[in-house]
């Protein structure tokens, strides 16, 4: 551990921590553009200049690394005594802002980054200088698609090189380069390539300004209308942590949320665009015999099936741990059998984040203790009086004549289903998923489910209660019982 003093406050930080991170631990924000914890330190933007006692001139906080320091007596002393809020530092920040904005087009009204732009934020906080250049701005390329998912505006770029370092150090695909020199420098795609890798859109998140924008999200929504929920990407078994940005019951985008243990700062593009499934193709209404019916009518029908004798449950790997637990408990109460099975297609797998298993919770089957043996399901199927499916699409050959399908998407419900009930997705409820490494991760609801949908766990627990088997139906109750019964804790 190293000691550091920041604005008079002394704290202890791990050896090798830089002053930007140390200051953050002390609750002090040091403005920066080029520094990013997931990328090698580059030190080019000069926004994080601070005063360090005893140093020759101002120092960049990002490259001031703190190591255990002792005085002659052997006592530990601060590795650096840093001042971030002096007049000199403020003057330096203003000076850097003036340079960064010198050739910036200031086209905020038509820029999709407006509202979450590092230039806007820091100008208001650290700049506020009057524009005093009368020289025409350097003109560069605007609105250039550089790949299937990303658009480049060279004029807005501040050349922090985060995107270049990402393609060099993280994906190692090297599509982006800085070309030219001096104020003619610009980001370019390496000749003969395009920015088309599985993680390309991360450069949009990394870009602190409006130079790299997402072709998917561009001009869909002004960001200040967006609200954000902490969520999980359900596109594969990795379970990358995401910010789910939404408004009016509609999801607009995922952005990766840092989690060292799961996805660090990144996510893949395949997963990123699975947010669309929250908005599209959803099952909104309850149906009986293919006809839209009031919700209560459909649950009445469901209870009849549940009471029909030999009932089977199949819960898919898109269901949450709560859903699986309630299925398990309800089936036990009814003397029924419950399987955890999922026939989702496999996808591409790589040695970074992408997994072939395109479901978020397959590990949940074992965790909850569901039977995952497909053969036993196939053998038992003909003898069942009814089948209840939860968040799973059955292969056509395995549909029971009396099936109740609890589905998030219309396409997952068999046409012949006796009962179809809409259930909530992860964006619409509290839920937890066990990722490929068995890490249990919770999502917070972004908005209410549309139409009649309920979380499957609540829907089934309510039916159990109606049939005389009280089951926990809220988050707290479910986890209390899970902990007690299986030692599975939140």
């Amino acid at each position: 551990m190293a000691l550091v003093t920041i604005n008079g406050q002394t704290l202890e930080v791990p050896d090798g921590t830089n002053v930007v991170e140390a200051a953050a631990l002390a609750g002090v924000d040091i403005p920066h553009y080029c520094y990013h914890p997931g990328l090698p330190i580059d030190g080019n933007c000069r926004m994080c200049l601070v005063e360090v006692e005893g140093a020759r001139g101002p120092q960049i906080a990002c490259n001031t690394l703190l190591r255990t320091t002792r005085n002659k007596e052997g006592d530990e002393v601060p590795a650096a005594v840093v001042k971030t809020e002096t007049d000199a530092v403020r003057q330096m920040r203003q000076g850097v802002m003036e340079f960064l904005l010198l050739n910036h087009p200031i086209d905020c009204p038509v820029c999709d980054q407006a509202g979450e732009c590092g230039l806007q934020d820091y100008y208001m906080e650290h700049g506020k200088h009057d524009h005093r250049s009368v020289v025409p701005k350097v003109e560069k390329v605007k609105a250039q698609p550089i790949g299937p998912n990303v658009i480049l505006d060279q004029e807005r770029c501040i050349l922090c090189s985060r995107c270049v370092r990402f393609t060099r150090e993280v994906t190692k695909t090297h599509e982006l380069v800085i070309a030219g020199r001096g104020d003619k420098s610009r980001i370019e795609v390496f000749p003969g390539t395009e920015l088309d890798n599985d993680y390309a859109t991360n450069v949009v998140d990394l870009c602190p300004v409006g130079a790299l924008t997402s072709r998917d999200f561009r001009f869909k929504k002004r960001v200040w209308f967006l609200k954000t929920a902490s969520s999980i990407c359900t596109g594969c078994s990795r379970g990358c942590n995401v910010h789910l940005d939404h408004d009016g019951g509609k999801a607009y985008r995922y952005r990766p949320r840092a989690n060292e243990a799961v996805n660090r700062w990144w996510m893949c593009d395949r997963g990123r665009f699975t947010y669309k499934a929250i908005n599209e193709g959803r099952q909104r209404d309850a149906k009986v015999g293919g006809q839209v019916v009031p919700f209560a009518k459909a649950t009445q029908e469901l209870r009849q099936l549940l009471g029909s004798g030999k009932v089977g449950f199949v819960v898919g790997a898109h269901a949450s741990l709560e859903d699986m637990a309630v299925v398990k408990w309800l089936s036990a109460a009814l003397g029924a059998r419950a399987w955890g099975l999922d026939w989702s297609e496999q996808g591409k797998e790589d040695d970074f984040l992408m997994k072939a298993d395109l479901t978020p919770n397959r590990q949940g089957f074992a965790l909850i203790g569901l039977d995952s043996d497909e053969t036993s399901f196939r053998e038992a199927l003909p003898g069942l009086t009814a089948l209840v499916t939860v968040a799973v699409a059955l292969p056509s050959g395995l549909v029971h004549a009396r099936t109740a399908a609890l589905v998030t998407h219309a396409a997952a419900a068999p046409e012949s289903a006796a009962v179809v009930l809409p259930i909530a997705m992860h964006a619409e409820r509290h839920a937890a998923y066990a990722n490929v490494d068995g890490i249990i991760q919770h999502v917070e609801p972004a908005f209410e489910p549309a139409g009649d949908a309920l979380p499957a766990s609540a829907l089934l627990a309510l039916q159990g209660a109606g049939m005389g088997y009280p089951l926990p139906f809220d988050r707290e109750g479910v986890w209390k019982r899970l902990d007690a019964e299986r030692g599975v804790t939140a």
Partner: protein
Amino acid sequence: MTKVLTAHVDHPDSHRLAHYRSVGGYEAARKAWTSMAPAEIIGEVRASGLRGRGGAGFPTGMKWGFIPVSSPKPKYLVINADESEPGTFKDRLLIERNPHAVLEGVVIGARAIGAKRAYIYIRGEFATQVKVLEQALVEAEEAGFVGPDLFGTGEGVEIVIHRGAGAYICGEETALLNSLEGRRGYPRLKPPFPATNGAWDCPTCVNNVETIAAIPWIITHGGAAYSQIGVFEPGEEGKPPKVDSRGTRLMCLSGHVARPGVYEVPLGISFRELIEDYGGGVWKGRKLKAIIPGGSSTPVITADEAMDAVLTYEDCARLKTMFGSGGLMVIDDETCMVSLLTVLLRFYAHESCGQCSPCREGTDWLYQVLVRIRDGKGRPDDLQTIRDLCVNMEGRTVCPLAAAATMPTISYLTKFLPEFEAKVSAAQPVGVH
């Protein structure tokens, strides 16, 4: 007068091995490899008082001593032959006329720091000089003075000549290393320093051509002999020396001087002697107005200041300028200092690598402001803008290129302010918006 570097350069075959051998060439290398331990070589260089001739003037022996002997990594010696500072053309002369002295210096330096491979990074525009150097290297390799087994020791050094691609910034040692590695020529953050993390992250010593070419003479004649040339004044007990400017330097005289060229002079002679006796005085019978002492990035000094000064690192520091690369430009009394500074800034704006925001944006902005002042379109607050920009650029970047633009700018503005003010006050500003 002793000539360390240029004693034989007037011979038509001075660049050939046969001639170099005939004047004792490669005997210093033999001595270093067969009868001196690496520490002894470094000791001689320390004793010589030789300071880096690339511009910063760092003591060469001390620099060699920084290379960690015990590091398990390969060590590299890199020669900076990317001579591009405007007004500087001494390394060019050495490579052209005395390439074997450079190679021999490399062979000795490699032994001193334990390098098995050395690189000579040569400016891309030096097309002729590259050919001369390559020919010299082939000669030296064939004669066994460069290669894996030197003087029967079973050890040796391989020398690789690497040609740059035409960027001034690649003369900055860490940008040079990036360029050498095949990366974009951006200066690196320091620390870490090249002595521990240089080429391919290995311990690396970067020396200027003129510095390394002085090494054979020092090994042959001894560090003490070299330190007799020039001026040295010890400091008080435990203090650094008051004056430490020993040896000879190649001074590049250019500008408004009667006999421009490269002159090897002992340190400590006066600027007056250099300009008048060596250079034949200001051309066309005009008067001296100012000089740029050490390449275009060093602050200008007025004629009055220059005529009282001597060629030492210390006298340059006293005048708040720098000895730099020895590129001395003579400026006569008919020169418009605004135009001169504008020309210099065009160079720095063109050569800023663009890595750091202040330099990338600031150099061109400075240039644009100067252009309009020069063209009689200056604005009343332009001089203040220039001063502000210089404050916002200098010392706030990875490398000193920003300072190379701002230090001269401030010196011109300070010492020749009336010329700038006259331009601005007579101006008829034309707005852009």
